[in-house]
């Protein structure tokens, strides 16, 4: 991609704390697989800092910032609920002899 002047674009940063760094890394690995639908108008970075998931969205328009952030939060919410539902059992390991 050629160098685009992002100085007039809109930038949103979101920090989401997790129970542990391990869970934050899981969230990062799960969400970053899907590319942004409009890469020429939305630039996304996802990192883990400590036990926080940090995402920044640099977008061409305010509307895109709203849409992208909304979709991202919906996805993070789904991942968090999945970890909440299954995380403890996953951590405990197999409890009884397998079938």
């Amino acid at each position, binding site marked *: 991609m050629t160098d685009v002047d992002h100085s007039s674009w809109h930038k949103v940063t979101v920090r989401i704390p997790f129970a542990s760094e391990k869970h934050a890394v*899981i*969230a990062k*690995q*799960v*969400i970053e*697989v*899907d*590319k942004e639908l409009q890469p020429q108008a939305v630039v996304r970075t996802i990192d883990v800092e400590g036990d926080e998931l940090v995402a920044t969205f640099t977008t061409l328009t305010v509307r895109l910032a709203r849409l992208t952030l909304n979709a991202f939060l*919906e*996805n993070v*919410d*789904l*991942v968090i*609920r*999945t*970890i909440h*539902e*299954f*995380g403890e*059992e*996953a951590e405990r*390991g*197999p*409890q009884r002899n*397998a*079938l």
Partner: protein
Amino acid sequence: MPGKPRKRSPLKLPEKPYIALGLEGSANKLGAGVVKHSPDGSTTVLSNVRHTYITPPGEGFLPRDTAQHHRQWAMSVIKDSLQKAGISLHEIDCICYTKGPGMGAPLTSVALVARTLSLLYHKPLVGVNHCVGHIEMGRQITGAQNPVVLYVSGGNTQVIAYSQQCYRIFGETLDIAVGNCLDRFARVINLPNDPSPGYNIEQEAKKGKRLLPLPYTTKGMDVSLSGILTSTEAYTLDKRFRPDCLAAEGEDVITPQDLCFSLQETVFAMLVEITERAMAHIGSKEVLIVGGVGCNERLQEMMGVMAGERGGQVFATDERFCIDNGIMIAQAGLLSYRMGFQTPITKSTCTQRFRTDEVRVAWRA
């Protein structure tokens, strides 16, 4: 092909039981199912749980709301399927999910859950083609050996036959799927979407009395359905149309039931024709009908008449397996997995267009 010796299947008997979880969400049905392949070669459905996003009458389902429905129900559907199967995720060998084809946002919602579970429990992911899932489940449930497959649903209409590790598409719709055609007409006449618009059209069609002329559009081995839909909708603007079915005896009227009946008879006859062409081409005597529209008993009946005339038979499953479900994804996924196929998480995307013949059917000779 008749007369040729059966080739040895590359799929060996498993040395231990294999268990897979399958997650499906390409349209408005969210499904989770657990399947087991035992060392004696048998396949057992341990659980098959589904929740459908049903819209009010007259409305279809849109990607955004469907994805929201899947996100909302994913946890309870998956937990329910594990509980009914009596296993925990630690005991499964792989997590299978629908890679495509289908609607983008709903597919991705389910993939997110699959990826998370894969990382939490350290289980491999297997991306599955939705169409191949239908075919493999149909084969497993009915025991059909090498049928011509008619795959008919809201999103797909294809005539498929297996040859040399590929499910080859012999004929298909040139525009919309037959289920889409039926569902959209159901919306025009305001039929409820509960349990599904197609089921309600089938019931209404049984009360139809007139067969109205509609364009019959087979195009060689393919069909075209959007023109028929437009023509059927045009009848609802005809001055003889009576939406409330009130008419004097002997009056020349068209009721919604007549239109349902005429639409079904026409499109099903077209599907039977293109299936017959494929059967004649290959010399096959078996027809397997899969996909949501395969539940329709009139279609099964018409196909049965054609197959009977050719000395063959029709195989079909009931609504547990016809309609989109998680167990078919588990089945096709586990067959792939046993042949060494896996999807690394970085490649576990979803795609709206995924042709049936893009899959290498490694588990068949």
